[in-house]
């Protein structure tokens, strides 16, 4: 069993109003050093295979098809030993 950890974030060119609101909240708590917050999604996908290369190919396909909308989002992932 392998585990893919997938991060999906809004593209740099896309405004993130949620991140902006959280940045404001952090500032109001005194964390003045915060210069930007981007909010994204984190997914753990367990895949029933021991073939890392194959898992990578399949997870990429999952990201392209469903997990990310590449019009507005970027994704990256790592394959770890389950």
């Amino acid at each position, binding site marked *: 069993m392998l585990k893919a950890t997938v991060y999906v974030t*809004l593209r740099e*060119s*896309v*405004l993130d*109003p*949620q991140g902006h*609101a959280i940045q404001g909240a952090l500032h109001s708590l005194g964390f003045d050093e915060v210069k930007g917050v981007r909010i994204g*999604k984190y997914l753990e996908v367990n895949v029933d295979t021991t073939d890392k290369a194959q898992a990578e190919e399949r997870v990429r396909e999952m990201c392209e098809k*469903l*997990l990310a*909308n590449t*019009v*507005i989002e970027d994704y990256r992932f790592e394959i770890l030993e389950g």
Partner: protein
Amino acid sequence: MRVAVIQFPGSNADVDMYQAVEDIMGAPVDYVWHSHNDLSAYDIILLPGGFSYGDYLRCGAVARFSPVMEQVIKAAEEGKLILGVCNGFQILTEAGLLPGALLRNASLKFLCKLSELRVVNNSTAFTQDYSQDEVIQIPIAHGEGNYFCDEETLAKLQANNQIVFCYENENPNGSINGIAGIINERGNVLGMMPHPERAVHAWMTSDDGKRMFTSILKTWREKNGVTTNA
């Protein structure tokens, strides 16, 4: 003529859509469950608003892979008229039938109110009963209606006259160029965030949505050589 209102788990504007078709178009209309895989009996396909699949992952992301969506894509290729409202619009973008995507409202607030729209293109199958640049009142009800596309896509939408509705006076959700509704290049698939089906009688505060349904009916009649008695 037969009209389909597609129902996904979590659709909630399906009844409004169905009743608007009955009241304004007077056409036979059926609810079609998302697992259905044959739309050959239908001439017009309506994707209603709501929160299909709980909006999990992204609005419309899961609904886009429903069995019925393959049929919706096929119907679009055949040139049938397809209208997606609110969540229906989100599903159409996820399915790639319309360009761009819908982001969280810039204000982060869910907006439920009457909005003013400018009819930017009245030469479509869905808007021929409006006047060019007419300002109409149609309600919105969404948390993620902030239309976004890259500059290249925007230029293409403008060049092909694919922007159909823009917000007037106030842009409620931060959408690019105030876009409220767009149509595909071929002119048979329209998506919009505002709800015309919720503005079809004077008692609904506005009946400006009525003419979308009369436009669709007129288009169908013209295409099929049916004489009107209206």
